[in-house]
């Protein structure tokens, strides 16, 4: 099945509930819509990684992509 894997970290799990979510997609899909689908407020997302490289939230994902979503990691 064609799908995108979203990995969700730390406080973003308050919305997504599961640390790894696989979402079926047919073709290129706006990442922002998937984040919205999970109920994560987009201003809580500080860093987006697609296949190991940092991208912006307004990027498109394709089937097979692995995307990681991080909040601000600014504690010390």
């Amino acid at each position, binding site marked *: 099945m064609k799908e995108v894997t979203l990995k969700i970290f730390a406080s973003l799990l308050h919305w997504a509930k599961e640390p790894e979510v696989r979402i079926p997609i047919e073709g290129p899909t706006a990442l922002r819509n998937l984040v919205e689908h999970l109920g994560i407020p987009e201003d809580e*997302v500080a860093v987006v990684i697609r296949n190991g490289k940092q991208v912006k939230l307004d990027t498109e994902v394709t089937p097979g992509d692995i995307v990681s979503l991080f*909040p601000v*990691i600014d504690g*010390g």
Partner: protein
Amino acid sequence: MVDGAFERFQNDRYFRQLILPGVGEDGQRRLGQAKVLVIGTGGLGSPILYYLAAAGVGTIGIVDNDHVDITNLQRQILHWEKDLSRLKTESAREKLQAFNSTLRYLSHATRLTEENAEALISEYDLVIAAVDNREARRTINKACYRLGIPWIDGGIREYIGSVTVFLPPKGPCYECIYRTPALRPKGPIPLLGALPGAIGSIEAIEGIKLILSIGIPITGRVLVYDAWTGRFDEFVPSQDPNCPICGIKVKGS
């Protein structure tokens, strides 16, 4: 100590790294001559300061304007019950002095600001950040890129932590990675106490590597440790060509 006794004491003290490829006597001298500024003496600052002192980093600057609070003790292992309400720089300095009395510790009981950052940082060869907010990191980033001084960042939250090394004028810099206006956490950040131990130790390791010019620094990539799943991962941060801090220099290079 009698003649030669101090040298023998030092040789014994650092014996395990004197026999380490990449360190040796020459490396030990470099460590002894190094001046490192550690900004923050909390969860990350504790292991960073302990390990820099253990390794024999000759001059260690300590910046913090905070006082020790009971809620700190769960992770800030430089500070003990007897230190409650004391200035963190004083508490830290006392422990470090007792731990390795042969080094120079310079306390700066002040808050790092846009105004004092450059003057403070310019006295050192390397900055290791152990701060608890994004504004302080942005201030450090700006000052270090202006001065051309390398800096190491570590951050923690809940069960995850990250480390990266910035080597000005090379980007991407901190500003490139965190351009998005993501919300600041509301209230205290939940934290597993041992997590800053892991992340701060990696920051100290990266600092020692830079001083010795050995190994491969974590630069141009961000190392992420997820304690929940027990996994290390890394990603390549994007470089912003229009970054106000490192963008112009990048275009010029």
